[in-house]
């Protein structure tokens, strides 16, 4: 059947609620309304106010409350309404969620999931478009996951809810309405397994979440120019699937990393650093990075320029020294331009 990513997430929550009485879904507007993106639609009417409910408007409260509920055996799945609105919970997430198992010598695990619609591309006003995966991926003790299609959305969310550890579950909001022909429940893939979305021989394009469709489009366009691009969708940023990425880059010898977040000290930097480290002798050219610009997310009318699109990916591929000539982008030691 035709399933949107939003529908798949909804189905995953429904199936998880049905499978385990300890699963609770809560957050702002997730009850009667079904969430501003309707991901929790119908859950309150199906499972009752006890299982899926609205909370007061306070994100630190939501996450902290979930921590407390874990102590009594519940498995909370909480929703932050938008990326930037998870920031009030940052202390609870970094100082408690990420550390609880460690600071209690393994005695208190927190099987909780924090769902966060993230990234841009929907013409949202400021504070509704942040790519915040870097903050979480940099925090030891958090698993960080982001699906790029409906099947993975279902699979990864079920995995997240069943995981004994806290998972930051990032939902690319621009893909909520993307459609796929699948049967639910679909087969689940364990955390830490990246997926090769397109096979290719000349260059490996590593990406995840919100940027996967752009990567696939770019690979398609690159094929016209004679470049065979392999597209890897990480699916889980933490844990990271070195094996799939390294195997591919060692074979293709070239790599571009694509992520919508600003590049500096983000997940894109990590991937580029890892690949450069692990595939050094296989690389014919430096790993290219295609990222969001080093500016705050702009007003909707500038979004198109801000977002790394197909052209920017193709440019990065084009710079991979196909003619054995070094790329001169960074020829000057200082900044170019």
């Amino acid at each position, binding site marked *: 059947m035709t399933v949107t990513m939003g529908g798949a997430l909804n189905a995953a929550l429904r199936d998880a609620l049905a499978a385990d009485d300890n699963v609770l879904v809560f957050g*702002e*507007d997730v*009850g*009667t*309304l*079904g969430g*501003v993106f309707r991901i929790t639609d119908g859950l309150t009417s199906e499972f009752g106010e006890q299982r899926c409910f*609205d*909370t*007061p*408007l*306070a*994100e*630190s*409260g939501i996450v902290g409350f979930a921590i407390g509920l874990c102590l009594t055996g519940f498995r909370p799945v909480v929703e932050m309404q938008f990326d*930037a*609105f998870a*920031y*009030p919970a940052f202390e609870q997430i970094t100082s408690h969620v990420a550390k609880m198992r460690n600071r209690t010598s393994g005695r208190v695990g927190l099987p909780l999931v924090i769902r966060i619609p993230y990234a841009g591309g929907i*013409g*949202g*006003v*400021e*504070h*509704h478009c942040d790519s915040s995966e870097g903050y979480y991926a940099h925090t030891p003790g958090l698993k960080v996951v982001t699906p790029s299609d409906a099947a993975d959305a279902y699979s990864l969310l079920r995995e997240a809810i069943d995981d004994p550890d806290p998972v930051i579950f990032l939902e690319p909001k621009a893909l909520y309405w993307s459609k796929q022909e699948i049967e639910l429940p679909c087969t689940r893939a364990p955390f830490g397994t990246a997926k090769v979305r397109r096979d290719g021989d000349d260059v490996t394009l590593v990406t995840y979440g919100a940027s996967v469709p752009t990567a696939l489009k770019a690979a398609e366009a690159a094929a016209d120019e004679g470049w065979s691009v392999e597209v890897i969708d990480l699916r889980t940023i933490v844990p990271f699937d070195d094996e799939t990425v390294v195997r591919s880059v060692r074979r293709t010898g070239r790599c571009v990393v694509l992520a919508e977040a600003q590049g*500096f000290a983000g997940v894109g930097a990590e991937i580029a650093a890892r690949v450069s480290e692990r595939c050094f002798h296989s690389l014919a050219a430096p790993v290219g990075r295609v990222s969001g*610009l*080093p*500016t*705050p997310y*702009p*007003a*909707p*009318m*500038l979004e198109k*320029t*801000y977002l790394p699109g197909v*052209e*920017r990916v193709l*440019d990065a591929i084009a710079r991979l020294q196909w003619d054995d000539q070094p790329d001169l982008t960074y020829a000057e030691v*200082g*900044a*170019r*331009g």
Partner: protein
Amino acid sequence: METTAQAMTAALLPSPNPVQLIDPTGAEVEQAGTRRDYPMPSAARLREIWHAMVLGRRFDAQATALTKQGRLAVYPSSRGQEACQVGAILSITADDWFFPTYRDSMALASRGIDPIEVLSLLRGDSHCGYDPIATHTAAQCTPLSTQLIHAAGAAYGEKRRGTDHVALAFIGDGATSEGDFHEALNFAAVFEAPVIFFVQNNKYAISVPLSKQTRAPSLAYKGIGYGVAAEQVDGNDPAAVLAVMDHAVEHCRSGKGPFLIEAHTYRLESHTNADDATRYRSSDEVTAWLERDPIARVEAWLRGRGELNDDVVAATRAAAEALAAEVRERMNTDVTVDPMSLFDNVFAQRTPQLDEARAMVAAELAADSQEVSS
């Protein structure tokens, strides 16, 4: 100590019922049980607020219409909240500071800010269309309740500068649950900052009703926990809003520290055009609130006293239509934004990293235009 605590309690708690001066029929209300004396504003002032509310409501309706036409990306209407949006603004001066939320476009227009600059955020050409420093008006704030602390800081800054300017900060009922609400009230109290925290309790935070937000007798009861004087007011009674605001402004200007106002009102539209309020509330509830219309009641009061005649009403309606037409016309021209402006205001001066990114985008745009021209 006992007497101190009891005296403080009496001074800080709000009236047990929302202050009301004019009831929904336009009749004057006998004051009883309010904690403070709230004189009826002058007829001239009530005419002024009536006029501004008529214009404000028309502006709001026009913005909603522009959204349906795709001219605005999104619009959070404040229809029904005119007494708050307009009344609070008319009670402060241009020198005072105002800290609005996303919902408060009507208040900004009432403050005299160019309506097109007000709508810039929602049209999507910039994050804020007006100059916060020149207008003493912060950019509309979306991260809930964060602006309250800025207001406390700015108010304290004015105090340090020796002025008697106050700050007025708007916030919704739902946003009072955020930790920043707490920190803002406490900072303001401790530093005796002249700031008025004005809660527009419109009964919903998107879909979440007040009953799921708090168990307080009313939100104004939060003041005493900070030693902040508080009041609750019928937020659909323009006379009461003016009277309570006057008291609060005087309280702040005279150095008595911050003041908390809870205005009971109602959001008649959905949260924004993207929301569907029928999913979580009944039309009966909405209808009941339509009968507590702030404009109608002050109009009835004014007419009953011969302070408003058909000519003035007609002239005001005409002014409102003219405003709407102007907004419509000016919003109907396509706006373009220079992509290179992306790099201008990250820092006062661009870093090498910004220069690099800028060069990349410039090259892309040059290539694009070459492609187009060739």
